């Protein structure tokens, strides 16, 4: 076996090796730890891109860990969707990491870099695993790392929000385990592909149990995705986290969405009896409600970071409207929008930090503050991020929303979906315009409000938001290729028989 054969496991191995190395050296030689983190982030990006190139021809790589054959051993499955999520994670990880290093946020505690690597490991593992119990394990890995990252820098507000975040996720994990236990008791397997084949053979008397298990599992994913009414934990958590961490967390809600997209067609597809497409009747209304709540929050937010957190909820809602169609077209449009909304949310959090660093005691509150150096440049950045988040041209949000609108037109409830997407876009535009004009146009007058003059901030912290916005522009310029890839990924996800064949034959070699 060559290194290329081990490609699917590298995105899990690299951060798993980097994190202990960083732990060992960070106290003696901090620069060495930072260098190790950089090498790991770059290595992840290279691996993710290589994996994407490998699977872009439509092949599905199944990697049997320890060569144990598939239904019994643990398999990692890399297909188009997984490769896409890995590339997203790697890009976002690099941007968030860069911002943390440039702004010095990583030096507020010893273990930022190690936790960051464990977080990336959990994310990559969750995207790669082909086994439901390992999905739980990687969820826990990424959650445990996220608890640490979220509390990084500490302070009363962060601790208070941290308690809520941890408690909510512990309850979520318990429900996940209950659902897993029921599914294992019913099907006798935890491998997703195998389970997808076996649900068809469940006795009529057990259909009720199957339905309950499926609904429990789906509600856990909905909790992670922060879909209404399970979104209440998100705003406080994201708004008080360190901005670089919040930018990385932009992908955490997408983990929930990814799990829905992965598990529902594969396990609860057409053959699943009482559990067939079990979230379908609830997902569209819930998604529309969260889009409305999210963009209403954008409208009423009191600070830039709170606004960005609400934008995360709103964009996840919009994304799930597309997913709720469960057709190749709408899912493809949704996946394109998923990539876009991840970077857009990260850009918003980073711009909020850039503003907060320049306004001293005013922070990122949505109120007029003192003038600061480079205000027009930062205003342009905020405008670009706001354009991306609301989905105005020329950035990729416009194309994403256009694709979603076009694809959901074929669905029975398309009128509602169109109304919600267009209406929330309008609310988003007004909300961002309100906050932007308060922060960047008005001045609080000379010395008023107690804002002490502070040392000028280096312009290096503009790099990370500019990188995120450049990626959005690239996503917009390469929209043809990106949406073709997203559509191909959607077609592949909706054909569970193909991946079952790949997993159960390749994985069992």
């Amino acid at each position: 076996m060559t290194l290329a054969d081990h490609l699917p496991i590298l995105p899990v191995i690299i951060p798993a090796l980097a994190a202990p190395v960083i732990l060992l050296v960070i106290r003696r030689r901090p620069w060495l730890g930072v260098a190790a983190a950089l090498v790991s982030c770059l290595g992840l990006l290279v691996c993710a891109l290589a994996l994407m190139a490998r699977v872009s021809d439509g092949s599905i790589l199944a990697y049997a860990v320890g060569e144990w054959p598939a239904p019994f051993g643990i398999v990692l499955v890399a297909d188009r969707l997984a490769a896409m999520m890995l590339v997203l994670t790697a890009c976002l990880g690099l941007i968030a990491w860069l911002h943390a290093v440039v702004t010095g946020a990583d030096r507020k505690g010893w273990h930022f870099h190690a936790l960051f690597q464990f977080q990336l490991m959990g994310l990559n593992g969750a995207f790669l695993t082909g086994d439901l119990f390992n999905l739980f394990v990687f969820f826990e890995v990424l959650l445990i790392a996220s608890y640490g990252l979220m509390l990084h820098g500490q302070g009363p507000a962060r601790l208070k929000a941290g308690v809520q975040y941890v408690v909510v996720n512990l309850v979520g994990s318990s429900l996940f385990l209950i659902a897993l236990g029921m599914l294992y008791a019913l099907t006798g397997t935890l491998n997703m592909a195998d389970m997808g084949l076996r649900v068809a053979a469940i006795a009529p008397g057990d259909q009720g149990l199957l339905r309950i298990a499926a609904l429990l599992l789906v509600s856990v994913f909905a909790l992670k995705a922060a879909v209404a009414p399970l979104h209440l934990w998100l705003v406080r958590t994201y708004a008080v986290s360190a901005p670089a961490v919040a930018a990385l967390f932009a992908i955490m809600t997408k983990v929930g969405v990814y799990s829905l997209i992965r598990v529902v067609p594969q396990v609860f597809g057409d053959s699943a009896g009482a559990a067939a497409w079990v979230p379908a009747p609830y997902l569209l209304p819930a998604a529309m409600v969260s889009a409305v709540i999210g963009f209403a929050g954008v409208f009423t937010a009191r600070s830039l970071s709170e606004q960005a957190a609400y934008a995360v909820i709103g964009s996840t809602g919009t994304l799930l409207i597309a997913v709720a169609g469960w057709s190749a077209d709408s899912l493809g449009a949704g996946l394109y929008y998923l990539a876009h909304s991840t970077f857009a949310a990260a850009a918003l959090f980073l711009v909020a930090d850039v503003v907060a660093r320049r306004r001293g005691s005013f922070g990122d509150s949505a109120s007029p503050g003192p003038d600061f150096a480079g205000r027009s440049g930062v205003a342009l950045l905020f405008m670009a991020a706001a354009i991306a988040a609301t989905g105005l041209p020329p950035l990729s949000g416009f194309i994403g929303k256009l694709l979603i609108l076009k694809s959901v037109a074929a669905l029975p409830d398309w009128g509602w979906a169109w109304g919600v997407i267009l209406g929330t876009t309008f609310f988003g535009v007004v909300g961002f315009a309100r906050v932007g004009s308060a922060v960047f146009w008005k001045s609080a007058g000379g010395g008023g409000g107690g804002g002490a003059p502070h040392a000028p901030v280096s312009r290096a912290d503009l790099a990370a938001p500019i990188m995120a916005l450049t990626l959005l522009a690239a996503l917009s310029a390469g929209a043809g290729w990106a949406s073709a890839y997203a559509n191909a990924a959607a077609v592949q996800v909706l054909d569970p028989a193909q991946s079952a064949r790949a997993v159960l034959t390749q994985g069992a070699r």
Partner: protein
Amino acid sequence: MSYEFLLATAIGVLVAGGIFLALRARTFQVVLGLTLISYAVNLFLFASGRLVVGRPPIWDKSVSAYTDPLPQALVLTAIVITFGMTAFVVILSLRSFLETGSDHVDGDKVPCDAQDGLADRRADDHEDTRA
């Protein structure tokens, strides 16, 4: 009375108690509630391989019937994770209480007097240390 009934009752009681406690306002009760729920979940996972008495989970020459070993492995993983999480959440809520002066989960500042007698108890403690 069958083992199944006994186990199902135990899980039900644990979950009921756990949910009741997890919905309380104070972090200590919430942590206890989460612990109870995690015990129930572990028992539930264990039972997902069906209840089998007197059979080994691993291969042996002299044995012909086995119990399902996989749920036992799953429970082990789940126990390790929930144990770590419980330790973490205890420390976290302690830090949160010490830094914010309130042990309410909803996070809003509650005046010490409103925390039914906590202020009085604190005052007593101070008097004790002085005395």
